[in-house]
């Protein structure tokens, strides 16, 4: 088979049952099945609804601030070994990360479905802030579940959510991070499913979430392709993004997947090292499994108990990965690597000092990979990195960390 035959056609996956090859699907308690059917039907209608799409476009332009800039980063590119490097500036979105693209989209759907109450989980707090913001804008009630560990390391975002009128519920079970916040959000949803829409923050969860979130985030790559064409006259040679659940990565890559010449790099959290529990590198350390409603690569022990994870960045600290990523990895279309806590920190400082942009710790993983591997790419190559968020939220954590070093 030639490359172009195996390449997924944009829009061809997931299949009708929500699978990307053997990944994806819908593995949830029966109580939620009706709500997922309802959500899927609403989305399929709205996806083709002109009025809905133009309302979304208006909000993205006038409220979120799209299109976001594409910034050439010459000094950081030199530090990486030299290339034409462009940063897709999702950090310049209102609320400071790509998460709002999805939160606004889903909140608009919820409103159309007549669901007045919104719940969300959050790790870094960016998705929680984005959801709280969308709910404030649209007059919806908002409850955000957040692990206690994450509440401590992302304190600023907890205050922001409360300022925006959201209720933030601390989650004290398990590892007290993103995975446990999702457990608690699902339990809330099972209980209040008739009145509540659950806005998942990444390309995770049962069908149709991976599809819906991908669609709302694909605006990133669509804009980037247009901007790069204008600036360089070409499509990029390499596209790089960090991968927590995988929404900013799919957002950048999705529209680019139709170009065979582009090389895609997804960067997972390498944490402190390769031992189970010390990282969130699902492809090198995980196995096929089902977590939070979807079949994908999951960090787990030999008995199928979900493993704890570690990353310096709360947004990458999760034991599973979006099913579409698992599929694209399996067919060899995207390469995945990991970046350690230390390397991410190094990149965090370098970008701040060389470009005047303080990146989110999550995005710093993508930059860290480039810092270490950029020299092998080639000076003439065009590279685009998704700068998925700004680092303001991480400044207190970094300050505390460096005081103790």
């Amino acid at each position, binding site marked *: 088979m030639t490359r172009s035959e195996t390449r997924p056609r944009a829009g061809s996956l997931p299949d009708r*049952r929500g699978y990307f090859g053997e990944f994806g*699907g*819908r*593995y*949830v*308690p*029966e*109580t*939620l*099945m*009706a*709500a997922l*059917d309802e959500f899927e039907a609403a989305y399929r209608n709205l996806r083709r609804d002109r009025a809905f799409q133009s309302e979304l476009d208006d909000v993205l332009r006038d409220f979120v601030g799209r299109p976001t800039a594409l910034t050439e980063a010459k000094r950081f590119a030199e530090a990486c070994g030299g290339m034409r490097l462009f940063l897709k500036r999702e950090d310049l979105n209102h609320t400071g990360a790509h998460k709002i693209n999805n939160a606004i989209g889903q909140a608009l759907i919820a409103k159309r479905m007549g669901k007045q109450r919104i719940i969300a989980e959050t790790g870094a707090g960016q998705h929680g802030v984005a959801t709280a913001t969308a709910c404030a804008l649209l007059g919806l009630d908002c409850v955000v579940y957040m692990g206690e560990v994450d509440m401590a390391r992302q304190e600023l975002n907890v205050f922001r959510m409360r300022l925006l009128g959201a209720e933030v519920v601390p989650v004290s*079970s*398990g590892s007290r991070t993103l*995975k*446990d916040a999702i*457990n608690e959000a*699902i*339990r809330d949803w*099972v*209980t*209040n*499913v*008739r009145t509540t829409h659950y806005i998942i923050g990444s390309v995770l969860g049962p069908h149709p979430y991976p599809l819906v979130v991908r669609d709302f985030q694909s605006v990133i790559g669509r804009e980037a392709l247009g901007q790069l064409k204008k600036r360089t006259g070409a499509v990029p040679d390499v596209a790089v993004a960090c991968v927590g659940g995988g929404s900013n990565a799919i957002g950048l890559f999705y529209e680019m997947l139709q170009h065979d010449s582009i090389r895609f790099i997804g960067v997972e959290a390498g944490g402190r090292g390769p031992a189970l529990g010390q990282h969130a590198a699902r492809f090198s350390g995980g*196995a*096929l*499994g*089902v*977590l*939070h*409603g979807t079949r994908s690569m*999951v960090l*787990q022990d*030999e*008995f*199928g*108990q*979900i493993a704890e994870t570690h990353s310096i960045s709360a947004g990458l600290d999760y034991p599973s990965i979006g099913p579409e990523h698992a599929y694209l990895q399996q067919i060899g279309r995207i390469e995945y690597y990991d970046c350690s806590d230390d390397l991410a920190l190094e990149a965090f400082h370098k970008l701040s000092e060389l470009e005047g942009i303080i990146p989110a710790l999550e995005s710093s993983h993508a930059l860290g990979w480039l810092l270490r591997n950029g020299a092998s790419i080639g000076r003439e190559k065009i590279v685009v990195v998704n700068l998925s968020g700004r680092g303001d939220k991480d400044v207190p954590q970094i300050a505390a960390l460096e005081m103790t070093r």
Partner: protein
Amino acid sequence: MNRVRKLFTRLRAGHRCGLIAYVTCGDGPTVEIVHALEDAGADAIELGVPFSDPIADGPVIQMAAQRALKNGTNIGDVFAIADEVRTRSDIPLIAFSYLNPVLRYGVDRFADDAATAGIDSVLLTDLPTEAAAEVRPSFRKRGLGSIFLLAPTSSDARIAAVNRVSDDFIYYVSTTGVTGTRNELDPTLLTRLDEVRARVTKPLAVGFGISQHVHYELLRDHCDAIVVGSAIVRAVASGDAAGAPGRAAAVVKTILDRDAPAPLLSPAT
């Protein structure tokens, strides 16, 4: 015909509503608890496989699973428990698990070992009928029944689908929510239960929240069995291990009101 199916045939013939007791394996002396539950009048046992991320469970069963995992309980231990129960008892055994531990163990291997251990049926909380084909043929080959759930939110089409693929009985979830004891049952439960019952041919067991004798009285003419979980799990946890079988048995007796001793349940949370 497996023991679960035989039980429901017997219950229907005798016009009796049965009681299915849930235990989290590895939280307390499970084998002794199972025997005590049977002696107290339980008709069948659900053996809960502890899982790290039990999204359908409330705090009582969550914490039981955490304790069981801390004790090092895994699927192999659940089979060992079933095996040991079988040396003394013929009570129907239903394995109750989330999907991931079963996938990791291997579906065929799980079916082999469960059947060998004397387990009769399997219920996977997060496996909807759409994905039944991933496990059911393998379970069936080893004579294991697959049990599926219905909920207050299930559409008519889903009720029909569950009635098709659920082998020995259907588990009806009494309310939208997670497991846990409740003082009041969902006010719409009886009406809804009668509606569902009119649409299915398989026996119907009702669970989630059932913890008191009045619940049993209310439900006994509307279903084939009730399932009692959190009330038992909480009783197991509320004292020393030696007393756990007695405390679990007392819950069943109180609910069935067979020579019930003084009130045993602390106010439901």
